[in-house]
């Protein structure tokens, strides 16, 4: 049976990530908007509120709001995460869902709203690198000996990037071991 998730492309994962709520401070007044999925509003100037990421992005592009950067997206928080990530050889540190996508979107549209954005960008990249390396070395190495690999705290984006390959590899190993 075809797994619908199996065909997910990174761009689609990013699309899914854009549904994540984020806090903004609008600078305009508006009532409630009914969208397919949810109702958003009312908007009041200078009143922080939660909206889906995609709406925040579109408002930010038109200078209609200020995006509140999530707490984890700061030099301090990311540095700690990076340290933890490096400390643990096998396990993954819990990161907020879609942290890669959200941060990349934020750097894209609202880099002024992110304090020390350049530094944050580098830290995110470093974390992603460490994790990718772990997936490659740690997770996939185990495949040889076991029927399943455990990938706790791995984000959807990361899974997407390895799913096809990993599944195939696992199948292959399974076939080999049953021979």
């Amino acid at each position, binding site marked *: 049976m075809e797994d619908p998730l199996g065909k997910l492309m990174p761009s689609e994962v990013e699309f899914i990530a854009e549904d994540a709520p984020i806090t903004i401070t609008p*600078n305009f007044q508006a009532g409630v908007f009914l969208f397919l999925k949810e109702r958003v509003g009312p908007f009041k*100037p*200078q009143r922080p509120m939660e909206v889906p990421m995609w709406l925040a992005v579109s408002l930010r592009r038109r200078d209609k709001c200020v995006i509140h950067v999530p707490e984890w997206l700061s030099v301090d928080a990311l540095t700690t995460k990076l340290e933890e990530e490096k400390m643990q050889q096998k396990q993954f540190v819990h990161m907020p869902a879609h942290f890669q996508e959200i941060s990349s979107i934020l750097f894209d549209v609202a880099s002024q709203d992110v304090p020390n954005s350049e530094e944050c960008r580098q830290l995110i990249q470093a974390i992603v690198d460490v994790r990718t390396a772990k997936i490659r070395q740690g997770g996939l190495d185990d495949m040889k000996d076991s029927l399943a690999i455990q990938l706790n705290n791995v984000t959807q984006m990361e899974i997407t990037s390895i799913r096809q390959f990993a599944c195939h590899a696992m199948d292959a190993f399974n076939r080999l071991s049953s021979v």
Partner: protein
Amino acid sequence: MAEEAAAAPMLRPVHGDGVTLVTFDGSGNIVTAGENAVVHVFKSTTDEDARVIEDNTGPIAAIDCKGNKLVTACEDHHVRLFDLSKGEECLESVVTRFQGPVKAVALNNTGSACASAGMDMVIKIVTLVDMSVRELHGSEGTVRSLCFDPQMELLASAGEDGYLRLWTIATGKIAHELYVLPNIRGGADPAEIGMYGIDFDPKGNMLAVPVKNAVQIFDRSLEFMFILKDLGHDAPVSVVKWSRDGRYLASVSVDGQMLVWELSSRQCVASFRHPRRLCITSIAWHPTEEEIAYADLLGNFSVWRKPVRESVKEKLTPEEVKQMEADKKEAASRADVETLFDDEPKQKIRLKRNNAPRNMITDSDDDEDYLDENDNDDFIVDDTAGAHQQHAYAPVASQFVQPAFQPASTPLEESKRFLVWNDTGFILSREEETTCAIDVEFHNASKHRPIRLVDHFGFTMGALTSSLVALAAPSHAPTAESQRDHPSVLFARNIGHWSSDETWQLFFPVGEEIECIAVGSGETSFIAAATNKNYIRLYSNNGVVLDVFCIDGPVVTMAAHENKLMIIHHSAAGVKSNQHMRAVVLDVDAKSVVCRTNVPLTDGSQLVWAGFSDTGLPAIVDSEEVVRALVPSWGFSWIPVAEFKQLRDEKHKHEYYWVTGLSDNEIVCIICRGGETYPKVLPRPVVSTVPLQMPIVSAPETAPSEEKFLRTKIFVDHLIESEELDELDRADRKLIQHHRRQLDQHVLASISRSVQSQRWGRALDLTTRLLLPGSYDIAIKLAMKAKSPMLAERMSLAKTALQTSERERLRLKVQAARAPRAPVTNVTSPLPSLSSVTAPRARSPANAPSFSPGTAPRTTHELEMSSPASTAATPDKAAARSRDKETSKFANAFQNVPLSPKKKPTSASKPKLSNPFSKKRASSSGTDAPATTATADAGAKSSNPIDALNDLARTSPKKKAKVSSPFSAKAPRALNPPAKQSKPKKPVSGYLLWLKENRKDIIQQFPELKPKEVVKKAGEIWRTLSPEEKSKYARPATSEKKPAPASAPSSRSDSDDSDDDEEESEKTSTTANNKNTKENANGVEDEQSQQEPETASTAPLASAA
């Protein structure tokens, strides 16, 4: 005074939270260090370009400085020596290393030796010349403080083992030891027990030691000499320091109080309080000047200039000295009284938002004042201004009365301040070198452009709505600094006005000062200015005088929202440390009072914000951060909707919410950190929202949802009541439905938890709170799931009751829609004054003597019951009774009627209250929807839990007629003309027929009468007529009636059902009837015939009255 305030050094935040240390170097530079491992060297308190020394790698626990030499004791186990005369690279050497964190360090007088100690319990004395180390063993706890004897023989140490020790430097042995200090062995909170800061006097004869709340002085052999205690500290003393000449001793306690003692008299000669009452962790005397630098627990430092004024002291004659002594004795005798005022508001206050310098003058309490000579007014600190402020000795028992303030304004800081920050935008006042400017910026950037005004008057008050900017300034007399000379002035600028942006200004009479202003937007915008004469002066947005009236006491603050104006003023002396204030909420359009009520404040607190929620509910915040909202239930009571101070955890202890507004579920605020109580102008503050949380006490499992229910209900009730149900468009209805669903969700959550814990009774109680039938089904499911069919059964009965009452509500609604027709035609002619209004249905509230708008339509019910009740009988009672009958049909019985949470006071006064709030009376006239909100909702929702086991047919209306919210902008319209309800209904048809015939005669007879008086006269004449004559008219009236069952008086008593039928049948025709504006006689007759059953049955009622 203002100049002095400006000159006094502000607190300077330099290090992060934690113990901060301060000292002076040989040339008078201020050296500070803190837990962020950084040392700063400032040339002065305002030095922007401080040197930063970053060689330490851990929190710095102690520093000492002699000449250019600085030593730091760092928790990274190192003691470092710096030479401040060098430039960037001033680290001289690492003096010594320890196994554990170093806690104390001291240099000897010449700077040739350094003593240090810490958790290692060993004291190391290092000769800085050759770096030779001598270790002193014998301490049994962490050493917290060290001090060299100026005579170079001894070293004093104070440790957490509770021992004060004197060591002989030469031998390294303990010379003397004494157990006087707090013994804590391990983690000590400096905020509680202090810093163990001991000090030798410059001659080396006396060692000052902080012991509990006093300073004890010991000699060189640790023999007790004397104690400095008299009227001193209220909290443990933390640090003591001798002045360089040895004449004075400064001591600080952990509550932020600093005292200066004179050695010769052993008396306290000056006192000072940390502006924010934070724990002071370090003090230091300036080497040459009369200055004490201090640093607090949050990384701030500042300087207390001239703690002791020499000139005054020297000039004193012996007589004066005697007088001083006498004063002190008197003060001492008052000490008992003082303790009463220990908690005086000012001590706890997180004050802010002083309106203007003039306000500071009014502050007059200070428990430290008595320590001073009368003329020594330099020492008194006015912490309200956030700066040192000096003023004269004040009587001890003065009751604290807070000055007037503008909600959401900040005090002047660095020549800038917010005059107001609200939902619309903010007004910023900036003083620049040559000019002053006012900046107005709006949050809604798409609607308004920022405005910049030149400030000629020194505005200190501002108010802002989206259509109006108002500013006010106190009077100014010319001074050396400014040439301003004008009386108090009010300035306004219309924005978004059709005739460009109009401005106007008004000068108030000399001697009358504006204390507070507010701007609202009713039908037209208005400006209210409260003055020191206790006047409220109202102006329209264009400067037209609307009114002037008096209030009962000095104003505290004002706030406005749409057509509502809330004035809070002092009204009497408070009890103990409470202030006694009253709030008046006015409807400016209607010129009426919505309510008057006392203002509840937390004991010893101050009012810091007053305003309205988004939906118009009045709310206040006090300095203890309790938020209260004024609700119409309980006869206008303040309900606490949040106690933020209690909610804050340890991590956020030093936060403060500077409130700018209130929305339905959240407080809108700017979060101030680090002990600040107001936001700085730059960087621009960020608005946050913090959810409210009512302080309820309930079972832990259901508390959260119960709290949510109660809180949501306050605002939803208000929202629903403030809207006219009949006028709601679809979106509004949807919104209300949405809110109802939310309420039900909260209740269902509680029910679910109650069911889980098998508390059936509680679950049933909660069920009665549900609003939507669908929610009952869910509740029933929950009960079934929990295998309690009994509960489910009762729940379904409750549902039936709800549906019944719903039906009843609809019926009443229709009835209400029909009823007003009668009076329209009937009363128009006899009441020309009313008919002159375009639609007589809209009635002036002033004319409504005792009946609520909801009364009229339901009178029918009252009559159906043939109730001989007095006119004061509430409609609700009647309605309830009628409902009784109906519900009894369902044979639903109640064993015990649970408390109805929604039941509101059913006194006649309630409806009375509801009347004056109609804002849009006039605007509603002319429309053709006679039903009123109140009516529609009135008989409304009565549902109750039902106990089928008991057959007692008893019910209580769960929800009483909803009285339209007084705070709503819109009010129920289409009220019935008063004649119908307020005048006896007895003569309706007969009298009218008679009047019709005789009106002209009366007018001819009394040509001088006005139309209104004609009716009065007619009434008088009618009353004098004999019964026979009256019956003559009564008969034609009845004969014109339809042959409906109601027409026969005999059948009336049991006409309930038939009446219902009639109503049902008429339901369909009502609309048509309504639209058909009948002015002809037929129409009148028609109305009268419907009126008839009332007429007849009211007879006993009227006669009883």
